[in-house]
């Protein structure tokens, strides 16, 4: 795939993961700010809350999309950093495949958890 399309996908996943990660972080960590905004989220890490989200199709879709965009964005960034280290050409090709395999494996593992709980 041409580099420009990979880079454009990086930009698209950047915007998407900004909104998705911001939602995720605010809900899970910034409960005082949410309270000021009138949202009572409670303890989002408690088992009851986790189970409630596990049973929701909306949250399942959220996590699947979030995982896909965040994994692509992060692993493409890592690829960029490692490819700047003057590796031999064969190593760069292997790096690409290794990152694809790691990405697919992490995605499969990470979506299995919410899907199995759904």
């Amino acid at each position, binding site marked *: 795939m*041409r*580099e*420009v*399309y*990979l*880079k*454009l996908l990086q930009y698209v996943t950047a915007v998407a993961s900004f909104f998705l990660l911001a939602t995720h972080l605010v809900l899970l960590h910034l409960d005082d700010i949410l309270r000021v905004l009138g949202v009572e989220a409670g303890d989002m890490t408690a088992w009851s809350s986790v189970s409630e989200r596990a049973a929701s199709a909306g949250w399942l879709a959220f996590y699947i999309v979030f995982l896909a965009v965040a994994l692509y964005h992060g692993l493409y960034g890592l690829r*960029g950093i490692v*490819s*700047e*280290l*003057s590796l031999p050409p064969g190593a*760069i090709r292997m790096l690409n495949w290794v990152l694809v395999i790691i990405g697919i494996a992490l995605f499969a593992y990470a979506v299995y958890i919410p899907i199995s709980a759904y």
Partner: protein
Amino acid sequence: MTTQKRREWGIEKLCFRVQRYDPDRDRAPYLEKFIIPFHHGMTVLDGLLYIKENIDSTLTFRASCRMSICGSCGMLINGLPRLACHTPIEELRKETLEIRSLPNFPVIKDLVADLVPLFEKHSSIKPYIMRPDNEEVETPTAEFLQSPKELEDYLQFAYCTKCGICMAACPTVATDRLFLGPEPLAQAYRYCADNRDANTGERIKEVDSPHGVWLCHLAGACSQACPKGVDPALAVQLLKRTVVSRSLGLSRERKPAPLAPPPAEIKPKLPVPEFTAKQSKT
């Protein structure tokens, strides 16, 4: 700077710590100290020339025009890549100067860097006008039409002197030897933006590669270091925009600038008497 201000600085002598490296003798570069007299208006190049003429004639460095137009004397001066002829010592306000060869280029000897990698990358982006009527470029019969606005689209980037200072400043060039670098990418945009050229597509193939334009992360060091105000960072980002718009089909190869038509009429010269030495004596 006035005489009074020079007296205020109170400097009589300078210490130049200069990189030395003789490939026949040394395993690695080292710094050699030279004490030289200071005078008002002195540049780093003046100091190096003094050392070569009065202290050590074996000191090797490149210099030519001494007026920052040729780009030969690029060096690392007190941690920043600069032109030695364009760096007044009073601006640095330091009595000790550390001068090394340009980083990110191999060292041939002392302060002389091997710029062949730069020239090879520069050649790879096809830095010349390419158009369907190439024979007109080779043997011109008339000028190409270009408005002042069209000239302004690329003129800034045409001031590049290929000194290599931007490449020395770039953090990506520091690790990736295959990365094209700010100068070739800026020159690629210079030709893409030139309305006389009609082959942006071929250059895009070269710059849209694993070690091409997408390894620029806008650190901005190249534009800060450039001694001619070329602003290669701006050119690279505009090149990215060109690549994206072309790839998404938002723009197409434009028609190149047409030839200027022959003049519609030629006004005859005014009848002025012919003055010759013979006639003026009469």
